[in-house]
């Protein structure tokens, strides 16, 4: 029972923490730090926050963050750059992928 309780209380908190890490890394790369990043914020393509240079920096910073957290973050999958289903299409999609990879 105790294990069950801890698994439902800790897991959502961890996912939320990972999401905050991803959003903080995104904001750290922006000139304008007052931009509010939400799940729907586009990262690449039309209206996206990041140019190609920032996208590379974001990927490397997330890789480093993942290493510190004890897992490996791979941004080189076939789907990574797809506008419709890629992890970089929105901040929320990126956070979801980061969380998913932390659980593998």
């Amino acid at each position, binding site marked *: 029972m105790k294990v069950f309780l801890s698994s439902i209380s800790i897991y959502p908190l961890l996912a939320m923490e990972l999401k905050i890490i991803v959003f903080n890394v995104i904001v750290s790369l922006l000139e304008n730090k007052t931009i509010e990043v939400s799940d729907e914020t586009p990262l690449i393509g039309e209206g996206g926050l990041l140019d*190609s*240079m920032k996208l*590379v*920096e974001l990927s*490397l910073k997330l*890789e480093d963050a993942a*290493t510190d957290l004890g897992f*490996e973050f791979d941004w*080189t999958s076939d789907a990574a750059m797809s506008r419709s289903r890629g992890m970089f299409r929105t901040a929320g999609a990126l956070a979801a992928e980061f969380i998913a990879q932390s659980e593998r």
Partner: protein
Amino acid sequence: MIVVTGASKGLGRAICERLKSKNIEVFGLARDVSDLSFPGMSCDVSSYKEVKSIAQHLKREGINVDGLINAAGIASMNLAITTPPEVSERIIRTNLLGTIFCCQIFAPFLIRNKIGNIINFSTIAVALGLKGESVYAASKAGVEGFTRSFAREMADFSVNVNCIAPGPIDTNLLKGLTASQIAKIIAQQIIPRQYTPDTISDLVELLLDKRSASLSGQVLHVGGV
């Protein structure tokens, strides 16, 4: 530390020995690393997985990579129509994909440092369109094209990417050529002289030097074409 592919023989080996003699740390990659006189690991550069796992190992060990020299290469002198498909595939995989994979996988080290050099290898066969080297020349033409575009992508991070295109240098790669064939190729260079692995090592040193910081995306033709 400079990562050098094809480090067990030929140009790669000569470059490693030269850099080592200048107290520059090198890390050699080759399929057979049994007799290296410097640190290295066994790796087939045409395998993305193998290259990736070496990079992960270096990262875990906290080794700072500030340069990459893609000297691994294979050749098969043959007319295109008599080249078996497996040979064509092997040449493209090692020469072109091997270079691309190593650049993709080791570049993040250099990007993090916001400085570094990548040196790729082409051949005079591209510029001269040498008969009997179609597939080899195609693989190296790919390396030249990749070098030019990749240099632009890396310029944002102060990483320079260049390519050295030697003529016939006395290494194992020349095994399939006769002395008169070699002489014919050399005669087409602007400076009609056969150069040595030492000359190539000089050029590598030059490109690694801070004073070459304004050069990127260039193909340097040894002997001139």
